[in-house]
């Protein structure tokens, strides 16, 4: 069964499958799939970029939602705590956040282990470091989008939930959240496109994403312009696919609204 599935996926592989773009256009040249070309390496880079962005999205959304809840609560302390978080991570360059997380987490783990009597060198996974850094940045931006969406929902909606005898959690889940998603979706679309572009920074800490893989190919083959142009085109195609998909989701979310 799984063999059959993987065979299906292999045949549908958009890069190096039988109908893949690199198999088609690559021939036996620079971007062919195999030992002579860079097609399979770059295809791997695309997979890393997509999986990093997809893995960051739920984490960032969850943290962002919690921050937005904190920022709109009546409790002053909670608002202050959320404000500090968003101010710091919206003010730092993404690259710096990445380095701070990458080296900071390494040092933190090392010092904790040293406390327990382990003196070894710790290398943290570049994927995890990238995920944490991008999630932190994404969450601080998405909290602003969600916060303004929260403000767009009138108080009456909460009061109606109370009047119906729903608990706070149920009110949030059944009444507020469905409206929130619809209002926040355009902002979230932007943030997703920004996230997709920001994943390029992880190439700096050595994760084999699109920029890293095309960079290696460029250095080895001395065809820098071609490979970096290919990298730009790959990001462009990813952005096009996601804006197409997100447009579809947006229309789906709006299906209950009155068409004008």
């Amino acid at each position, binding site marked *: 069964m799984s063999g059959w599935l993987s065979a299906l996926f292999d045949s549908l592989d958009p890069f190096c499958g039988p109908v893949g773009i690199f198999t088609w256009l690559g021939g036996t040249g620079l971007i062919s799939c195999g030992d002579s070309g860079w097609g399979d390496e770059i295809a791997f880079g695309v997979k890393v970029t997509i999986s990093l962005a997809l893995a960051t999205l739920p984490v960032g959304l969850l943290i962002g939602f919690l921050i937005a809840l*904190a920022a709109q*609560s*009546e*409790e*002053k*302390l*909670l*608002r*202050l*705590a959320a404000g*500090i*978080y968003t*101010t*710091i991570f*919206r*003010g*730092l*360059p*993404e*690259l*710096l956040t990445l*380095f*701070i997380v990458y*080296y*900071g987490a390494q*040092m933190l783990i090392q010092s904790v282990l040293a406390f327990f009597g382990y003196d070894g060198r710790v290398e943290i996974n570049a994927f995890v470091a990238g995920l944490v850094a991008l999630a932190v940045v994404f969450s601080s931006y998405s909290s602003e989008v969600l916060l303004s969406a929260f403000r767009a929902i009138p108080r009456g909606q909460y009061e109606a939930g109370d009047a119906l005898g729903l608990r706070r959690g149920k009110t949030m889940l059944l009444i507020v959240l469905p409206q929130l998603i619809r209002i926040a979706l355009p902002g979230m679309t932007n943030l997703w*496109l920004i996230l997709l*572009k*920001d*994943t*390029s*920074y992880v*190439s*700096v800490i050595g994760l084999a994403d*699109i*920029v890293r893989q095309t*960079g290696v190919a*460029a250095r080895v083959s*001395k*065809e*820098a*312009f*071609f490979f*970096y*142009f290919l*990298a*730009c085109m790959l*990001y*462009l195609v990813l*952005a*096009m696919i996601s804006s197409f998909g997100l447009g579809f989701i947006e229309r789906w979310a709006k299906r209950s609204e009155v068409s004008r």
Partner: protein
Amino acid sequence: MIVTKELIPPRPAPAVLHRPLTTAKVVGLAVLVLWALLAMALISMVIEGWDPAKFERYGPRYLNGLWTTISLVGVSIVLGALLSLPVAFARMSKNRVLNTISYAYVYLFRSTPLLAQLFLIYYGLGSFRPQLESVGLWWFFREAWYCGLFSLTLNTAAYQAEILRGAIQSVPTGQHEGAAALGISKRVAFWKIILPQALIVALRPYGNEIILMIKGSAVVAIVTVYDLMGETRYAFSRTFDYQTYLWAAIFYLSMVEALRHLWNFIERRLTRHLVR
């Protein structure tokens, strides 16, 4: 007929309600304590690891890097604003060709990462050295600083063109018609009526764009420009001292916060005639 027999005697004020300790309060307090602990850990790290020799060695370099970042961002914002004018007008024109070209430019530069654009310009154009030498442009594309400036300018021009276009198109048609009805020529109407209103709309997006550029300009460190980030990486590679990144964070944060407050002030000042 109502006859009041007795008055209600004065009563003490109701007791002050003690607000109960809610979960929100506890969580807020816990998170604040966590922030405070983190801040104290970082401050103690800076104080413990304080080394005057390092400060003397890298302090001036940091200031140089700060100046490089500021000049890079400043120049590219100004050049980008100039370049964004024709792009924005091409985007609004009815000419099919101009429209398509400017749309493709904006779309391309807005949906690819700045890092890839920078590599394309620095390494990619660098591989055309003979051709560039023959047209006499090699001095420009040889320097990492110029390449950084060039890619930042192209990038910000695409964003600024969209800001400008959105702002100009947000001015209601009635303003154009009103100007036409008063017999004001198109050119004067644009400079005196449309643009001032559009720029107020564009003020906040422009501020955000400058902040994004300050943050985005950190990528030029990767192509060996010694801006603030570049100096930080240099200092870290020499000392392996985590403090170097903290200092960079302080510099970047203060730049962004200063700009944000300045922008709030400018906006309040310029829109005071709109406040009701």
